[in-house]
């Protein structure tokens, strides 16, 4: 196979950070090339260089594409050559229809007048190709993330893509949606489309990739060829983190203590449609030192449950009681819930978890300003100390805690959100997809932190779509489906199959 793309000695610096340091990347025509590495290793940055998001001149090094030296001054330059990038954050216009989104900036029109029949015809063809059964006129915000991801791919196909770049496409997807997406990639490969995929899910990488390039600390560490050698996950992990990692889940002494939190008869209705019940009569409890998992498919209502408990942040007409150590507590507002000892780490860090324009330090203390202030006046020295403490403990990769959160890599942003809630000092920590978009090493660290909390007698509720993680970390697992708890399993006799069987039979 001949080389389609070669990036040579790419170096890119941001004020105070060398994000890429002489990185080399070689992609063969018609292959699926995986790019892996720890959070902040520079994967997204490298792809932004390639696609012209960072125009030529803002970095050093050369890009050779299709035998030519490529110089991109903007995204449109790279798109003209068939290089299409789908960013870590999706870039669809929520209120527009699928058809409108697909052809945005590239409309089928004559003299500026939209040709709707043609638009719909082409949309239907593209949707069929990506295997999405939706009407072209459906607004994008009514689709789940998985389907939105497919719309992004359809959009790329509409532009005659030759090299498709996907930055963590499956991070927010359920197992089955991920499978569908990977199958689609393989199909596209058969049609001759080359793709580069960034992912922290190494099993997926192993499944689809022909070649794997590992990046660590802004440099290329290794390039593994699946055709010539057997690539194990452990091998990839070793290159990523620079040491052997025999275990994926740290050891923990499991002991459930006294009753900590009880949620009784919890009912919640949809915030807009008062007749639609989203959470139906849920009862559950968490003991001190216990890690309780909640399993379920996307749309089972797990996030809605968590958010409604946390200060009624979701839904209306909520009924039910929350007790902490046997006493009913006030969770009517977020502030009250925090005061009562709850914390909730959201699954959507950008929209709901962080103030991106603010610094790491300010984000970490936001939910607990009381502990760094006296009579309403903030002690900045103290605040910096706190932020520094979490930077070290969580291993947040950044030149300083005064860096804007916006400039951190996805995984490091997640660590900031976690730090914020740990600093709030909760009795019960509710984690919603806590390791989404996080590398293996950092996952291990986060599991370690969860274990530490449980050793301190705190309770942890973990919502996760990654079954292995739920099975590896929880003491007990509740299975949720369509707003109800349909099963409860002890860790000792839980398995992926048993969880699934609960979901299917209800």
């Amino acid at each position, binding site marked *: 196979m001949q080389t389609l793309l070669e990036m040579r000695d790419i170096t890119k610096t*941001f*004020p*105070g*950070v*060398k*994000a890429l*340091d002489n990185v080399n990347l070689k992609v063969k025509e018609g292959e699926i090339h995986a790019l892996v590495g720890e959070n*902040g*290793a*520079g994967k997204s940055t490298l792809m932004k260089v390639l696609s012209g998001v*960072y125009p030529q001149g*803002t970095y050093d090094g050369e890009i050779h594409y299709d035998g030519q030296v490529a110089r991109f001054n903007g995204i449109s330059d790279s798109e003209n050559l068939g290089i299409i990038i789908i960013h870590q954050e999706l870039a669809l216009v929520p209120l527009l229809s699928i058809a409108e989104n697909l052809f945005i900036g590239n409309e089928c029109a004559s003299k500026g007048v939209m040709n709707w029949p043609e638009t719909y015809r082409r949309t239907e063809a593209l949707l069929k190709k990506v295997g999405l059964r939706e009407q072209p006129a459906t607004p994008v915000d009514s689709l789940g993330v998985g389907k939105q991801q497919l719309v992004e791919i359809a959009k790329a196909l509409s532009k005659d893509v030759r090299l498709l770049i996907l930055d963590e496409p499956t991070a927010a997807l359920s197992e089955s949606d991920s499978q569908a997406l990977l199958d689609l990639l393989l199909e596209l490969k058969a049609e001759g489309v080359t793709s580069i995929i960034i992912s922290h899910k190494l099993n997926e990488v192993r499944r689809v990739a022909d070649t794997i390039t590992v990046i660590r*600390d*802004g440099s290329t560490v290794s390039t593994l060829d699946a055709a010539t050698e057997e690539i194990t996950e452990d091998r990839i992990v070793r290159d990523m983190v620079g040491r052997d990692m025999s275990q994926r889940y740290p050891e923990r002494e499991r002991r459930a203590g006294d009753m900590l939190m009880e949620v009784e008869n919890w009912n919640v209705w949809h915030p807009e449609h008062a007749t639609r019940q989203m959470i139906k009569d849920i009862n559950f409890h968490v003991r001190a030192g216990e890690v309780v998992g909640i399993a379920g498919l996307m749309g089972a209502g797990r996030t809605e449950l968590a958010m409604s408990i*946390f*200060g009624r*942040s979701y839904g209306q007409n909520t009924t039910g009681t929350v007790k902490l150590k046997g006493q009913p507590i006030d969770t009517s*507002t*977020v*502030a009250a*819930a*925090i*005061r009562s000892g709850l914390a*909730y780490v*959201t699954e959507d860090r950008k*929209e*709901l*978890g*962080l*103030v*991106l*324009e*603010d610094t790491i330090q*300010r984000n970490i203390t*936001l*939910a607990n*300003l*009381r502990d760094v*202030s006296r009579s*309403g*006046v*903030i002690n*900045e*020295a103290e605040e*910096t100390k706190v932020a*520094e403490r979490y930077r070290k403990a969580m291993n947040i*990769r*950044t*030149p*300083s805690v*005064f860096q804007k959160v916006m400039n951190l890599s996805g995984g490091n942003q997640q660590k900031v959100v976690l730090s*914020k809630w740990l600093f709030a000092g909760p009795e019960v920590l509710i984690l919603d997809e806590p390791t989404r978009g996080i590398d293996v090493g950092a996952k291990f660290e986060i599991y370690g932190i969860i274990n530490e909390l449980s050793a301190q007698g705190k309770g942890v509720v973990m919502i996760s779509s990654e079954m292995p993680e739920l099975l590896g970390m929880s003491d007990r697992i509740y299975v949720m489906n369509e707003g109800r708890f349909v099963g409860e399993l002890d860790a000792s006799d839980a398995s992926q199959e048993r969880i699934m069987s609960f979901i299917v039979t209800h």
Partner: protein
Amino acid sequence: MSDTVSPEQKTQTNTTTYLLGHLRDYGLLFALIAIMLFFQVVTDGVLLKPVNITNLFLQNSYIIIMALGMLIVIVGGHIDLSVGSVMGFVGAFAAVMIVNLDVPVAITIPVCLVVGGLIGAAQGYWVAYWNIPSFIVTLAGMLVFRGLSLWLLEGQSVGPFPKSFQLLSTGFVPDIFGVDRPNVTALAVGVIAACAIVYLGMRKRARNMAYGIEDEPFSFFVVRNAIVAGALLFVIYKLSTFRGLPNVLVTMGLLTIVYAFVTEQTTIGRRVYALGGNVKAAKLSGIPTERLTFLTFVNMGVLAALAGLIFAARLNTATPKAGFAVELDVIAAVFIGGASMSGGVGKIVGAVIGAFIMGVMNNGMSIMGIGIDYQQVIKGLVLLAAVIFDVYNKQKQR
């Protein structure tokens, strides 16, 4: 990524990147100084004559006072278009109370401030608790209070005010040392303020050094402080050779210090920034976002009322036209000062400097005899340039 940077790279970062990264902060200050020097030259030195400096403060005090409140509203992610009308309305209200109804000044002033707060509350309520866009609510307020001032004053100017009320604006702090020319009180205040600025700057620097996060080169630090302290002393010295410190300058100075402190050092200030930066995240962090938004409007109302009193006191009458289009100057000052339309970003000191830039331009162009037509055009272009500069800067940093 590597967070260890070699020594020689480090020194380079110090000068060039630092300047690039902080172009906005320095730019604002230097823009003000450059504009002042420019007008000083083209007006043959009239601009910095003691009497004109005094005038500058008197003329712009109400804009600066409202810019303080507007900055907070804008940082919180909203806007208040009604401030000009509210200011005019409160001036009219005060005139009716004092001149027509003979209510004592000492009662009128607090009542007017409360009225301002209530107006702010009435508007803030819809914005905060009903999620009605502030642009619309305050646009309505702008019309309503413009109309109400006309109604209150029955289309006439009402005045004059008693001496005690005028002092609010045209009074001067007497020289407690009794020398009067130069006014030693003013000089003393100036020296103390200059020392305080340098001292606080040094303390902050020392603290940042201790954390290893100070990146401003020492030379920059010295030059910046020398310029700021020097300019302050110069202005105060000029004032002292005229009639000393105007009362409004004292009010303005104190308010600026208080608001800068509140926005930068207190939990409530911090929460407003978070609110403007990301409402949803702020809400999920336990911040009472509605109440906070409400309060930013109440605060704006009180400051607009104060501005209205000061303005009426200076003109010595309340006219139906008072405060007309002033909201535009106030909002422009805040944006020139570096605040962002989308909220979460902006500084009190920036807004004050922005207001001074507008004020000096108004004053300088008037001395030069430039017509109001050109003045508007030039001010508009300066605003646009400042914001373009901001956006350009941001893109370059990527």
